């Protein structure tokens, strides 16, 4: 694929992830379905963005394109200025559910990515142990997934995602399968971990509150075919010179203002 030379945006920083005029259509015997239309945006290194939209608007497709397991029908997806042509070690994808393999122990699950990528397994096991211990699972390394609760399982999935040391983390509604308390607690924990590790993160969700409290920027997608409707920077008054935690963000005065704006843009209509 021929890609126009990269022009670094103002500030001279090469975007970590960039989409240029991406179109995605699915083909079936009944016809073509247009999933995404003319999507262009870029994400700076270390930035945490959220993409919101209603179900079926192509959010998950967008992440599959960035991760390289799908190719766009038109346009280009770039990571570090290079066109994505397949799954890329720099990019890790965390799916909606943990999808832990029930026949593997927690530790064996956490090193799955490293094993598939043919990495040094001694190093991978050491890193997985470190991560799992950091997430409070140090004593469960030899347990099987069915012995763990939903929140713990999702933390194992996070360790599996970060064990391969990616630069970019894609989160596809990673809390949707959890109960609401676990969901809030884990969102806070994962946001904190990803920020501290300096990962570039793209979160896809239909939960407006989750997007505002976790991300620095929120992109709104329209209904199918998904088109970019708006791109909102989310800024909070400083909390001692740092970004607020997700809990602080939910209590900040700006939260409701952002919530109302995004709610109106989503144009939620209950049908039926």
């Amino acid at each position: 694929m021929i890609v126009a030379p990269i022009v670094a945006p103002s500030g001279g920083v090469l975007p970590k992830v960039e989409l240029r005029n991406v179109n995605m259509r699915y083909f079936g015997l009944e016809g073509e379905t247009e999933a995404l239309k003319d999507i262009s945006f870029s994400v700076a290194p270390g930035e945490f963005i959220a993409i919101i939209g209603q179900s079926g608007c192509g959010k998950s497709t967008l992440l599959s394109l960035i991760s390289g397991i799908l190719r766009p029908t038109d346009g280009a997806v770039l990571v570090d200025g290079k066109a994505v042509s397949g799954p890329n070690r720099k990019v890790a994808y965390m799916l909606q559910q943990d999808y832990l393999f029930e026949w593997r122990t927690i530790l064996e699950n956490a090193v799955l990515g490293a094993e598939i990528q043919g990495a040094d397994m001694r190093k991978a096991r050491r890193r997985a142990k470190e991560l799992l211990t950091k997430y409070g699972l140090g004593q469960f390394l030899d347990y099987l997934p069915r012995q763990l609760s939903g929140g713990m399982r999702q933390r194992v999935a996070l360790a599996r995602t970060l064990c391969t040391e990616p630069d970019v983390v894609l989160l596809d509604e990673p809390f949707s399968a959890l109960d609401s308390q676990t969901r809030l607690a884990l969102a806070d924990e994962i946001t904190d971990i990803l920020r501290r590790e300096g990962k570039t993160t793209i979160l896809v969700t239909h939960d407006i509150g989750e997007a505002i409290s976790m991300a620095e920027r929120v992109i709104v997608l329209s209904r199918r075919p998904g088109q970019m409707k708006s791109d909102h920077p989310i800024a909070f008054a400083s909390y001692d010179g740092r970004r607020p935690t997700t809990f602080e963000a939910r209590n900040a005065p700006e939260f409701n203002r952002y919530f109302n704006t995004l709610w109106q843009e989503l144009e939620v209509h209950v049908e039926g």
Partner: protein
Amino acid sequence: MSRVEQLTMTTPSLQYRKWLARERRGRLSVRAAQFAILVVFLLLWEALPRAHIINPLLTSYPSALWPTFLELLKETPRQASILTHTWFTVFATVIGFSAAMVLGIAIAAALWWWHDLYKVLDPYLVVANAMPKTAFVPIFYIWLGATLSIYGMSLAISLFITILMIYNGFGGIDPNKIKLAQTFGATKRQVLSKVVLPGSIPTLIAALKVNVGLSMVGVVVGEFQSANIGLGFLIQYGSQIFKLNIVMTAITILALISSVMYLAISWLEAAVMRRR
């Protein structure tokens, strides 16, 4: 509930001990009922022919089996011991279901790998599975000779259902687990070896269960036609000279072999499932 969250009390409460006792009684009564059915069956089998309600020539009776067994145990130059007959049947059955498992897994994996191949072969597999394979017993005898035709029949009866079962198991793997492996860049080979095959272990065990029974059917039917040794041969021989004692003894041994194989697979299943 996850095991981690489980609370175990140090001293079991009275209610808990009562509950345990009830559970135990429940399990024991199931075993007792199973045993009772066997006893009633054997008693009827013994009593009805003796009372001449049914003709003893047609059914023999349980108490006649042991003397017959002892008699058949003797090895004469003209007649092999019943242990030899049993060994040949068991051996052929083991060969039959092992071959069916190995070939079944290999063919199912090939069909999974080349999906178009599956689409082409699907109707043929279904028809091959539905065919009465025993119709081929005489032909197999002509094609393969005395010994190979027995293995052939055993394989023919169990192979197609094994392929279909295992292939369905492969298709039942959560596509998101495959997607997960692909996000890490897994090749098709890695998807097969790290997701599809290990995820299908329960299916493989289910297929093995079906297989063991079917392979034995194949062996016995094959032996009817072509063998001069094996329990199938003994059944055929016994019925031709109208010695139902021999037939019933051989059938009882077949039942015992089935039970042992069933127990062996249950044990294997428990060992494998402990990891899940």
